[in-house]
């Protein structure tokens, strides 16, 4: 019973905290300027389950960590989600097609060479040749020019609202090093570690995955608050959390996600550990309907399903209170131009009425409804086997749907088969899958990429009214107009229900209380400049 009480208390506490604000981290909102003297932190140890295999620029997690600490980009994303300057002090564009950036003046590489606009041009040209992901990120980038040492001009094929967002993740590389590197996949010497950031990578232990960073004393900006940072690798979250409780690490870190709520009770037992939460800008679990499939194209059916689900129970079980029930308008509340739509509600009778009205009736008396044409009706609900939460969640959904007489069949698929059926074959019927922050930005944003048949199309919506709205949104710069269009999209979701956001879990980030100044960033988690420059001893 101990845990139950604890969970309840946490739930209440968290609910209170959440009511007080959405975008700000719940703890440590008091900011302090650069701490000095005794307050300085000699060494910060961060645990992670993200393993760096090799220190070449193609290594995914090396990229993640170096982007946080050693390497910089033109712009970066602030804790509140705004795009703010980094290597570029300012930028301007008139038509979202031609972008001009002005660089900082005194930035130097870790080997002492100054950063120039030529480095940025070189980076873009170089990566175009050898980055396998280039096309999906910068496919629309036509040219990069460096008219002088401090100015970069980038030209796009067509206006792109998301261009800065993409730039924010893209590390700038030193030309004087990489111009001699033919195969960056194999280039992993300490020279590959050279960036412009406040930290230098001093050593990398391949066997243990341990990264050791030290402060770069020639850094162009102000000096960070921590002298050394160790990134320690753990193969699973449980052991990382045990190490965290033992005090071996100062904070656990996971790229772009938080930690499961079931770790919370044990962590809160520990006086030294604090928990902060952050609203998720993706959606943790969404129930998608493939509208191309017979019977699933029925709007009444989809709405009936939406009334059959006990959102409150789902939220409690899967988020332990660290979550929320999304609106019928799909997009999370922290999205720009979020519009309040009908809240999702659990109403079994209404669901049954809707089904009856739509012709889904139990004609053969087996307890399950048949399709309006009298055929057997057994929609398939699929999900990915490697996402344990999803596997558990579809079991719950089956229970709810059975309760209103829908004989849903579960299909647990491995990640590849699931991806195949959702992305290529479109053989799925109903599916439970999450959306990511980036995914929500696809197409015209607001998750339209997942809905629109022309783009990713998990819902395979081919409605001209919907597609017109999407097209207008892509080509509109005007803010008021954008807001209006975004609202239209959300209304469309709320009405047609091509997908139901079942629950949304907050990002949970534990940290050590003996340091103050932890800040969570939606893009880079706790490893961000706010934390690095502001953290100090309690």
């Amino acid at each position, binding site marked *: 019973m101990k845990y139950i009480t604890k969970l309840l208390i946490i739930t209440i506490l968290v609910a209170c905290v959440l009511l007080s604000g959405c975008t700000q981290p719940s703890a440590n909102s008091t900011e302090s300027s650069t701490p000095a003297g005794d307050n300085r932190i000699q060494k910060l140890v961060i645990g992670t389950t993200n393993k760096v*295999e090799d220190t*070449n620029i193609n290594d*995914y997690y090396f990229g993640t960590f170096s982007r946080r600490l050693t390497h910089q980009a033109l712009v970066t994303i602030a804790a509140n989600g705004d795009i703010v300057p980094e290597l570029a002090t300012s930028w301007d564009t008139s038509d979202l097609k031609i972008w001009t950036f002005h660089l900082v003046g005194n930035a130097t590489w870790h080997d002492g060479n100054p950063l120039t606009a030529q480095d940025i041009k070189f980076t873009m040209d170089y990566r175009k040749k050898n980055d396998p992901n280039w096309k999906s990120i910068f496919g629309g980038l036509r040219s990069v020019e460096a008219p002088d040492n401090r100015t970069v001009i980038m030209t796009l094929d067509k206006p792109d609202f998301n261009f800065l967002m993409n730039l924010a993740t893209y590390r700038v590389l030193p030309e004087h090093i990489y111009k001699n590197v033919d195969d960056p996949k194999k280039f992993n010497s300490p020279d590959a570690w050279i960036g412009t950031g406040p930290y230098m990578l001093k050593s990398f232990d391949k066997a*243990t995955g341990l990264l050791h960073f030290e402060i770069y004393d020639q850094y162009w900006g102000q000096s960070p608050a921590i002298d050394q940072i160790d990134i320690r*690798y*753990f*193969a699973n979250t449980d052991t990382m959390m045990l190490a965290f409780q033992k005090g071996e690490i100062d904070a656990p870190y996971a790229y772009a996600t938080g930690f499961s709520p079931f770790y919370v009770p044990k962590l809160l037992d520990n006086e030294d550990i604090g928990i902060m939460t952050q609203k998720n800008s993706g959606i943790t679990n969404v129930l998608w309907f493939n509208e191309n499939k017979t019977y699933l194209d029925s709007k009444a059916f989809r709405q009936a399903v939406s009334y059959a689900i006990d959102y409150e129970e789902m939220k409690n079980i899967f988020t332990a209170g660290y979550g929320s029930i999304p609106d019928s308008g799909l997009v999370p509340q922290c999205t720009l131009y979020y519009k309040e739509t009908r809240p999702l509600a659990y109403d079994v009778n209404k669901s049954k009425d809707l089904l009856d009205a739509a012709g889904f009736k139990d004609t053969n008396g087996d307890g399950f409804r048949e399709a309006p044409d009298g055929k057997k009706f057994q929609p398939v609900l699929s999900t990915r086997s490697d996402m344990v939460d999803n596997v558990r969640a579809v079991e719950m959904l089956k229970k709810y749907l059975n309760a209103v007489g829908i004989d849903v069949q579960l299909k647990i698929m491995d990640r*590849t088969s699931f991806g195949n059926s959702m992305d290529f074959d479109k053989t799925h019927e109903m599916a439970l899958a999450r959306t990511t922050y980036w995914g929500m930005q696809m197409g015209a944003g607001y998750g339209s990429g997942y809905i629109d048949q022309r783009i990713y199309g998990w819902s395979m919506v081919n409605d001209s009214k919907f597609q017109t709205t999407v097209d207008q949104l892509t080509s509109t710069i005007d803010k008021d107009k954008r807001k209006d269009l975004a609202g239209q999209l959300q209304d469309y979701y709320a009405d047609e229900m091509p997908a139901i956001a079942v629950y949304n879990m907050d990002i949970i980030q534990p940290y050590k209380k003996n340091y103050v100044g932890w800040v969570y960033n939606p893009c880079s988690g706790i490893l961000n400049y706010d934390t690095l420059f502001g953290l100090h001893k309690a």
Partner: protein
Amino acid sequence: MSQAEGKTRFFAGKVLRYGITLVIILTINFAIPRAMPGDPMINLLGDEAARIDNQILGELRAQYGLDRPIQDQYIEYMLGAGRLDFGYSIHKNLKVTDLIYDRLFWTLVLIFPSIAIGGLLALVLGAIAGFRHGSKVDRLLTGASILMYSCPSFLFAMIIVTIFSFHLGWFPLGNISSGRTQGFAYLLDIGWHLFLPVAILATFEAAYIFLIVRNSITQIMGEYFIFVAKAKGLSARVIELRHVMRNVLPQFISIMALNFGFMVSGALIIEIVFSLNGMGTLIYDAVMSRDYPVLQGAFVFLTIFVLAANFLADVLYGITDPRIGDSMSTGKMT
């Protein structure tokens, strides 16, 4: 036929057999992604293929030769395997072979001491139990080893970690070392980190081999030549050490090597529990991300090692047991 010729023929036969085995295993490996349901391209490249657009996919398809006839693909594949080339992990952005090399090293670092310690333990305890067949010690040891048999290794390891590393805090929670130490201190550090995993693996190994040693000792103790040795008036110690152990040794060696495969499986689980940087975690990650090239490469490498261990065992067996080499010649000197 001369004895030397018999031995040569024996080893030549072994080499041939292992060669054929290797080819068959490589063939199985070649066949799996092509025979399994789904697009072989996706089966070969894994999940990441889904994110690559069709043009690149087409190029990769050509690169892997999936558009060519199956026999050409097979030849290409076998040539690649000959160069230890098992393709490229898009997920990890590395050549599979490069990825495997250092992982394999750490797995072997885990396995070899475990085999050595476990084997020695099994030999000593097996001898104790075997010579005192039916005694209390024998029952106790046999019971304990059967108990170990029936315990899933991951559960055992998890419980050990929880007790010794977390609650008691005597050992680290995983990983191979704390990093950034040099020389002797580094070795000590690794030893400290590997203590629990090696202890657990060695225990399982010992439990496994113990029964075999005990049993073959019991069996040999019942052989007529042991009775004859008693009749010769040899002391119990001489009989046990010289006559019995000499007979147990060939079987012991071969079981140790046969067990290499079992140890590899065990090591996979133990590595995952202890977050060790080896083949186990590599395979686990690859399973989680459906990184098929890595899975296949890892499988082939492990198999090659198991084959090598078995080959070594056969050779050692041939050397330690005089009957083996001779069995290849036509028969007795009648």
